[in-house]
């Protein structure tokens, strides 16, 4: 009896493990987006389709917002005329720096790690994200969260 149950149990664990693949064929999370001089002030949406990011330059420097709404993961739209990001799913609104100010979003949109490559291009690493959880310290000033150029 114990042997039968054990076998069934192990088989069930194998069945569960089967649903978790080891290798994934998903978009790259590390890539280059060009030189700092390519980006003027404001929000640049040209990498939204390819990499799901926006490149933003303000007076402090250049940073990369990951275009995932912090509510339930849709891609917000950049509305230049309203100077804000607006999520089409449930109406969360973000200012041009990705800070939430309306709707159900619980925190600002995450930012990707950025650094200058030896060839002078901006290298982005989306797997290394910086966030600002509600009521906690902002990681947006951490080294790597913004290129002060």
């Amino acid at each position, binding site marked *: 009896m114990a042997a039968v149950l054990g076998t069934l149990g192990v088989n069930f664990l194998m069945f*569960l493990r089967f649903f*978790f693949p080891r290798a994934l*064929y998903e978009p790259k999370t590390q890539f280059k987006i060009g030189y700092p001089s390519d980006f003027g002030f404001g929000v640049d949406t040209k990498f939204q389709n390819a990499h799901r990011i926006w490149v933003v330059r303000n007076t402090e420097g250049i940073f990369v917002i990951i275009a995932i709404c912090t509510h*339930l993961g*849709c891609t917000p739209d950049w509305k230049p005329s309203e100077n804000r990001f607006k999520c089409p799913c449930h109406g969360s609104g973000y200012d041009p720096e990705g800070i939430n100010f309306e709707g159900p979003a619980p925190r600002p949109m995450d930012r990707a790690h950025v650094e200058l490559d030896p060839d002078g291009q901006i290298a982005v690493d989306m797997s290394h994200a910086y966030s600002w959880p509600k009521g906690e310290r902002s990681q947006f000033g951490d080294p790597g969260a913004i290129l002060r150029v």
Partner: protein
Amino acid sequence: MPETNGHNGQPPAGGANSGGDGNGGGGKLANVIAGAKAVHAKAHEELKETLKAPEKTDVWKSVLRVKHDETPRSRALGVLSNVFLHLHPAKINRDAVAYKYTWGMGGMTFYVYITLVFTGTLLMFYYHPSKVVAFRDILYLENDVPFGKLLRNMHRWGAHLMVIMVELHMFRVFLTGSYKKPREFNWVVGVLLLVLTLLLSFTGYLLPDDQLGFWAVTVGTNMARATPLLGHAGPFGPQLGMTPFNDVRFGLLGGSIVDSNALLRAYIWHCVAIPIIASLFMIVHFWRVRKDGGISGPAPVQLEREMKEPRKL
């Protein structure tokens, strides 16, 4: 090879009837014709008999097994011993199926489910669950496949209807108190069937691979991030080592984003796994309706004209 067809170097014997052998020439031909006529007459006779009394043929007896009379016993047995009808009780109280009481919602839900299985199976003939062609196949079904638009819309509206009917059925059962003893277990089975119906609806949502379905499933599976213990953003999830690459959402999607693996998984859950599980629960559900004493209903009414005179001693 067995020599049953006469190919042994001699010309084949010329008679359909086995009696005509070796008379030669015209006599042989006459024999053949006479034999054919006899067979024809016999077939004609048998056909007449079959049409007159089909219930006496071997085919009839083989399929239906027993004779059916117009007696209450025979009619009850006809239901009890029939594979398709035996889910129904042999006899029920007249008042138990009053539509104003049951609304017929359970039966209609099952009917809609059968319709969905049928139209869904037909849709599977044209739909490929692959990121490249899934949406193209939907456009193809909508615009070019004969009756494809009708089938797709029957499936879509039927799905909406099934959810509505399941809920109305549940509402009726609740209002009439039919979840009470001895039907508690069947209520629980019904709740599981409600969940399975919603899961069927949800997994079918992604399959067209359009903007609506894609973002709906993005939102829906992102809720799984917040699952306690099993989600990487849920309570105690990170403490148990959950990340976007090993939590319950990852297992549902087959990846960290809604992509080709997620589409294929939704397809298999939608077309194979959940229908089988739901069908098993439906079997138990219907069976328990009978075992728990039939459809619940108000106390049986006896009409005055049906009352017998009290027996005098």
